[in-house]
């Protein structure tokens, strides 16, 4: 099959959906041509769809999301970009108090079908204000759906599902992942929200990872397969909410051991939520404590030598797997 980079898979999803559905439009900072967005995910959109549907904004994240909310309430399907997920802090009222709650507060009268695409994650020596992974905030907010693809295939299918969803979706794209390649069908397809993907089968241990860390978990799994004969199963929830608890539980019931990998600050992370769900559903199936391989509980430092120390890498995951197998 055709190979595409994540950023091109995203672009393809956006363009095909804009062709199909006149309600879809884009807004964000530096998204029009010739720039096409800081991550090049919208190249050519302005040229094809023009200034009404591809809207360059001021540096006004609160207004970007607010305008998306307003347009969605009027039946449009806005796809907003917040350049770095760190900047969602500027739009938290609109995300948390408006987008997430409008349906509820109005007793079901209102729908807010919007997508906020934003780049998360570390790895570019971009320091503490450009490297965060804030997914836990959104997972903690009822009313939001939260999506975090790891592969080009998932990126396209999940983005199409997100744009077509009736609820507000936070769509996290890892900034070290935009040029990752993989097979992507040309046709229209949807990866449904709430369906995990077992990215690698295994019987000895379950790894749950999302976004870029799925790729690192897969590498680590190959390494321990070769070096230790451990067969790790890698579950990628793909949507952090709705969470496909069943797929995770089925895997844990089979393997009885769990490693949770996340680039988030561990304290209060989505991974800790997964741990709680596992404990609730399969406490008696666990052979030992759940092992976390997470970012350290610090901001992200600038110097690459420290940044690498803070975020999990393949050796960290391998170590986590070996530790889990000892229990």
């Amino acid at each position: 099959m055709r190979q595409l980079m994540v950023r091109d898979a995203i672009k393809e999803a956006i363009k095909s959906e804009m062709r199909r559905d006149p309600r879809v439009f884009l807004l964000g900072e530096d998204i029009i041509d010739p720039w096409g967005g800081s991550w090049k995910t919208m190249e050519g959109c302005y040229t094809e769809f023009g200034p009404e549907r591809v809207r360059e904004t001021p540096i006004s994240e609160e207004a970007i999301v607010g305008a998306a909310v307003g347009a969605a309430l009027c039946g449009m399907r806005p796809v907003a970009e917040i350049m770095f997920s760190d900047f969602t802090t500027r739009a938290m009222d609109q995300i948390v108090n408006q987008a997430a709650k409008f349906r509820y507060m109005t007793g079901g009268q209102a729908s807010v079908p919007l997508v906020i695409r934003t780049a998360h994650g570390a790895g570019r020596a971009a320091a503490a204000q450009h490297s965060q992974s804030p997914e836990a905030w959104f997972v903690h907010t009822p009313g939001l759906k939260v999506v975090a693809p790891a592969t080009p295939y998932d990126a396209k299918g999940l983005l199409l599902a997100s744009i077509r969803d009736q609820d507000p979706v936070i769509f996290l794209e890892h900034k070290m992942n935009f040029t990752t390649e993989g097979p992507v069908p040309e046709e229209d397809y949807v990866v449904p929200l709430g369906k995990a993907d077992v990215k690698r089968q295994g019987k000895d241990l379950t790894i749950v990872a999302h976004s870029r860390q799925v790729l690192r978990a897969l590498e680590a799994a190959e390494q321990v397969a070769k070096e230790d004969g451990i067969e790790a199963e890698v579950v990628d929830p793909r949507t952090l909410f709705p969470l496909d608890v069943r797929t995770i539980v089925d895997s844990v019931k089979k393997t009885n051991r769990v490693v949770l990998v996340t680039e988030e600050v561990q304290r209060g992370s989505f991974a800790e939520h997964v741990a709680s769900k596992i404990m609730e559903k399969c406490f008696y199936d666990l052979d030992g404590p759940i092992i976390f391989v997470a970012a350290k509980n610090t901001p992200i430092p600038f110097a690459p030598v420290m940044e690498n120390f803070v975020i999990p890498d393949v050796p960290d995951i391998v170590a986590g797997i070996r530790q889990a197998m000892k229990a």
Partner: protein
Amino acid sequence: MIQQDGGGAVTTARTHAAPLIGSERDRLLWMYKTMQRIRLFDDRIVRLFNSGRITGALHSYVGEEAVAVGVCANLRPDDYLVSTHRGHGHMLAKGADMDRMMAELFAKETGYCQGKGGSMHIVDMSLGILGSNGIVGAGIPIASGAGTAIKIRGTDQVVSCHFGDGASNTGAFHEGINLAATWGLPVVFVIENNLYAQFTPQRMHTKVVDLAVRGQAYDIPAVSVDGNDVLAVSEAAGEAFARARSGKGPSILECKTFRWFGHAINNPGSNLGRDQAEIDAWKLKDPIPRFAKVLVDRGIATEAELEGLKRVVEEELEHSIAFAEASPSPKPEDALRHVYSELPEGCEL
């Protein structure tokens, strides 16, 4: 899929919206009657609250009726309106149904929000009302989003965005209006300047006296009018909406007015710090008798006719209370509905 939603769609007979066809007299009498609807409704809820029949955070619009009514006299049912925590007046002026409003305040299943929203979140989406809002200023960028939808679709609808003097100091004000100005959106930003933000007088929250001056920061037209003169409001709003409808972009309309009661009905101390003399002086400028006098003086209606209109409203109000009282409460588990449109099979909330 688990349907989380459903049952929310509301259809309201639009008998209460501003008359679009019909005579100037119809329009003026609609204005009078609508001011009375707001006055009597918000006056009564104070007593309903004090007698313990309704609860929650409630903000009375009494004294400010001319603003919502003067503005909404220019709106079509398909135009949008964005409201605030002090939203009853906007709802009624846009044509909302008093029964369903009252039922919402009574936390009943028949309320506009099925009891989920309460006073600060009443909306009627079928009337284009895009939120009351508990967050000061949050409606401003939302209004710009509605304007964006209109512009993309190319219709001649408009958006009326209401908020207070206090809201004009939020970042949302700045970002929302700058966006509307830059994009040339059909939104009128109505600053309902009642001179106080909660307990804080205007001079303590900004140095500026006429908030309309802020239009210059976005290069858009902006005027200040007497917000207790419904005709002045209606005329200025009419000009602003005409500009918006014809693609000439947004405006600011500042209406100076005053609320008679404390900031929030559920906060007994919330009139502290305002002089009784100031309140009394503003009560002399009551927009309703002032407008009644114009109507009578111009021979548009007799005092008896106006009295008759008021009695109709009184009946509507009594009916709404009876309706609300007779309505069922939501079930506790209804709290679990309407969080999402739908969730996948097997997915826990």
